[in-house]
């Protein structure tokens, strides 16, 4: 799974029917401390995450379809958790994620 932070949302009118009524969040991947993240992905929200929150993103198709109880949904990335705290060794928030 990927550690990241929600930085925004995208909105589409014309889209695959699976995505009707689903929130699509722009998630910035966590970068090592001292560096700036340039990587992002767009994930479907499954937990009600908001902009600015650190989240856990599942980036694997079978698990993503399992969450949506579907066998053929064209989905790979799903926000599956909201993170309270991250620590690496003795260093908290070592992944560069800012506090909520």
């Amino acid at each position, binding site marked *: 799974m990927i550690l990241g932070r929600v930085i925004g949302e*995208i909105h*589409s009118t014309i889209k*695959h029917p699976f*995505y009707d009524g689903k929130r699509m969040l722009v998630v*910035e991947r966590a970068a090592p401390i001292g560096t700036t993240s340039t990587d992002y992905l767009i994930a479907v929200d499954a937990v009600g995450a908001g902009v600015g929150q650190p989240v856990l993103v599942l980036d694997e198709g079978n698990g993503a379809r399992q969450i949506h109880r579907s066998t053929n949904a*064209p989905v790979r990335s799903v926000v599956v958790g909201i993170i309270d705290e991250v620590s690496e060794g003795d260093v908290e928030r070592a992944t560069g994620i800012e506090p909520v």
Partner: protein
Amino acid sequence: MMLARVVGVVVPCVVCRGLEATPMLIIQPLDKTGRPKGRTLVAADSTRMAGPGELVSYEGGREAALALDPWFVPVDHTIIGIVDAVHLQDREEPS
């Protein structure tokens, strides 16, 4: 999924079975600020409505083919939706 800009159209004359009449577009992947990132690629269009100049979201890998009908087709990138607006924390970028 990632964001991309449609930059061209591909018209194949021979395709694998199941891909007949599937629109193929050339897309330029974008970074989160909307700048081009990486090389262009050819994606099938599941919306059947995207065209050059439009901002789209696309999926890669096995999931790409699942957006199409029939879904058991040799496709590795598919346009999933046409993006109306991207709302980012710091700034807003209309399509």
